[in-house]
């Protein structure tokens, strides 16, 4: 080796030992020295303005408050500015302590109101301040108005491969296309949102980087899946799942305080929502155990028009998991222990994931055994498809939580992939091995649900219809006098969204 630096253009393509004799060795040595010098200096140069690592997302909404969260690469103060228009973010909430996990509660808000916001530091807005960043506070409990819910399950494949990523994005894009301007108010995550083991980086790649344009506007309510358990623990409420989310645990959004983020409940308008931890590791699933007793208290106190319960493990499935397989303990335990409870307290819709498919039951009640026990429809309350355009909506006799009037069970576990050999479970009206998500619209006494696949097709639609509310007499104060108004059937339905936006 001569030691002199040879112009790059003059380097011959060489083979074998000749490589060592060329001037490239000197060049390589020079570069290595450069690398080492640069590496030594880089830590000192790394400090600068914070950069968003997780876009802002919204949690634990109540009629008067919301929690805004985001993550930055370096620790900084947490500032949220908000106001009635993007141009007038006149209110500020600030947490001075430097952190990378920003979690700011905005209190003192008006119910059912839209606010625009930005997040950042006192000198820098990292996101927001435009028409795309807004949140809507919950309506007061019991309010009857149109509510839209987006439901995804097992959506975390983006953390694993590009195909899963592409499918998750397609599912999201067709949801956005379906809802148009009428974005969902709430977003239920049915677990397994970060494959394969729910680590922090898998949450970032599998969830937070996939849905930034949804999570900046739509309130997020997760439940724990078995893959999150790979890195999180419900006993200690630690790990990426618990660190990433803020749930309403003290009854601040309605429902009975659970005191734990593993299971919780909340009200949104005239719907009561309950998230249960079916993932078993650490949580006692026994009848009479803490979670079971809390659920009974919560259901006893519930007087909403509709009740939706969601957890991860499906009680009825023949997809990538089989609810007849005795080794699938969680599926058995939830079906045998929790289904009798939720049906006796009048739950209308139960949502799960776990199986990577879409499976949706007819209106059923009292089916707690193997699939053969309802093989001839013994458990059917209404064996039709529930589609108002086909067999007709499922009719329930009571507006409110009434025992054993029937529950629809849906597995929505294909929001980023499908797998397994799907066959029909006898209770299912629809079963499909294809990626998609569910949109649920509740308006007064009607609940409509749609499964939208990754090609934008509505593959399933069903409706649960309850009697209209008793006419309410309202003293209507008008200029120059007073009058009585009746809220009747027509007025209750006037604001219904079209049944299908596409």
């Amino acid at each position: 080796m001569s030691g002199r630096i040879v112009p790059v253009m003059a380097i011959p393509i060489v083979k074998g030992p000749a490589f060592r004799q060329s001037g490239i060795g000197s060049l390589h040595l020079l570069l290595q020295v450069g690398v080492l010098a640069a590496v030594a200096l880089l830590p000192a140069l790394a400090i600068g303005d914070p950069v968003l690592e997780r876009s802002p997302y919204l949690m634990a909404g109540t009629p008067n408050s919301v929690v805004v969260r985001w993550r930055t690469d370096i620790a900084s103060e947490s500032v949220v500015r908000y106001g009635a228009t993007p141009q007038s973010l006149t209110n500020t909430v600030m947490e001075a302590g430097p952190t990378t996990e920003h979690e700011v509660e905005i209190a003192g808000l008006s119910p059912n109101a839209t606010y625009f916001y930005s997040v950042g530091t006192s000198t820098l807005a990292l996101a927001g301040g435009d028409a795309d960043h807004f949140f809507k506070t919950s309506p007061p409990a019991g309010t009857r108005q149109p509510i839209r819910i987006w439901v995804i399950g097992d959506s975390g494949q983006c953390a694993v491969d590009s195909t899963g990523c592409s499918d998750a994005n397609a599912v999201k894009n067709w949801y956005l296309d379906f809802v148009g301007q009428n974005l969902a108010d709430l977003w239920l995550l049915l677990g397994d949102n970060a494959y394969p083991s729910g680590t922090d980086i898998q949450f970032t790649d599998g969830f937070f980087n996939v849905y930034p344009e949804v999570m900046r506007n739509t309130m997020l309510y997760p439940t724990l899946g078995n893959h999150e358990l790979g890195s999180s623990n419900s006993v200690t409420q630690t790990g990426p799942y618990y660190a990433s989310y803020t749930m309403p645990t003290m009854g601040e959004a309605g429902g009975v305080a659970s005191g734990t983020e593993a299971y919780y409940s909340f009200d949104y308008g005239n719907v009561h929502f309950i998230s249960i931890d079916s993932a078993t590791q650490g949580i006692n699933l026994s009848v009479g155990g803490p979670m079971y007793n809390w659920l009974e208290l919560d259901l006893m106190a519930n007087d909403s028009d509709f009740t939706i319960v969601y957890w991860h493990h499906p009680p009825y499935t023949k997809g990538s998991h089989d609810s007849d397989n005795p080794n699938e303990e969680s599926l058995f335990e939830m079906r045998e222990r929790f289904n009798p409870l939720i049906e006796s307290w009048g739950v209308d819709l139960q949502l799960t994931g776990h199986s990577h498919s879409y499976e949706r039951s007819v209106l059923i009640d009292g089916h707690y055994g193997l699939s053969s026990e309802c093989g001839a429809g013994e458990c059917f309350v209404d064996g039709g498809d529930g589609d108002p355009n086909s067999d007709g909506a499922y009719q329930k006799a009571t507006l409110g939580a009434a025992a054993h009037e029937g529950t629809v069970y849906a597995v929505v576990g294909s929001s980023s992939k499908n797998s397994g050999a799907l066959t029909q479970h006898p209770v299912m009206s629809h079963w499909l091995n294809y990626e998609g998500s569910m949109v649920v619209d509740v308006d007064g006494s009607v609940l409509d649900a749609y499964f939208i696949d990754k090609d934008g097709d509505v593959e399933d639609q069903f409706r649960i219809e309850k009697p209209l509310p008793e006419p309410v007499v309202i003293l209507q104060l008008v200029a120059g006098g007073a009058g009585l108004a009746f809220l009747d059937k027509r007025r209750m339905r006037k604001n219904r969204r079209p049944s299908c936006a596409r």
Partner: protein
Amino acid sequence: MSGAAGSTAIKRRAAAPQAFVLIFAMLMPVAGIVSLAPNLPQFLTHFAGIPHHEFLVPMILTIPALCNALCSPFAGLLADRVGRRRMLVTALLLPSRSLAHGSHAERIGAQTRLIEAAPADAQRYLDRAAVHLDRADWAAAIADLDRAAEFDPDLATRHYLRGVLLWKRGSSDEAERVLNRFLAAEPESSAGFALRARARADLGRPLEAAQDFSRAIAYQPVAGPDLYLERAQILSEAGDRYLERALRGLEDGIAEIGPLPALALAAVEIEVRIGRFKDAAQRLDAATRSFAVRAPWLIRMGEILEAAGRPVAAREAYQSGIDEIALLPAHRRQLPGLAALRLRALERIARIEGR
């Protein structure tokens, strides 16, 4: 430098494209290291609890650079021996294998491929054991745990997983033994103590179980109500002499988490068993004041007053509960839980009245 490299040099001369590829390829490892730099502050925050983290964390930049410098000659030797293309293609393909998620069989298959790639890595057997455990495939899970032990007898997590398996299978005594080993290695594991507590409770050793629950609570950064409730239940089942201890534990939970109805109602039941009916009534009233439907608690209040030897007040409470249920809409009155309560209250009133 034409031909100076000797007889092994080929005649084609490098030009701009070759130079670009060469420089680009040489810059890739540099870029790989440099791209870590902006994340340093976050790494420092994340590992703040580790001793000497200020020194160790920046090593993620230094060590790859050193490896780069030190390994380059050997990479060159290897390239000379096996050929540059073969070495580069192999190096590119190695990290591209990802862990796909799918059905149980797919998950097992993916884990198995990882094991085949590194058959002496004990952690990979543990990962596959966890998948088997998820499907209650005990025999396969045990086989993988045994394999993990062969390759790394000191891996404490395998004891925890075996404990979960044994406890779920109903072998609480064996579960306790392996959890003892796990906790000897991980003496501040809240999950480990909680699991051993449940195993000891199954073995009929409530005091030791309660002690484990206390440790599980103590080692939690944020305690949930479940462990407080389970501890209180075990102590109250152990006998009347432990009721005060059970109550104190629940009060600790209330102080830590807040006045959760679940904790307060458990405390009410213990006060009743101790015989402090007035305290029980006060706790019940405070715990259920915010409930919109008060009937269940009015009826429970009646039972407490009856047990306290106050039949007139008890009858009044029962009747209040019945009246409140009567005011509910029909579908609420017919809920099995509320209908059963109403029936119970009617029976109690009949008993008080001697009917």
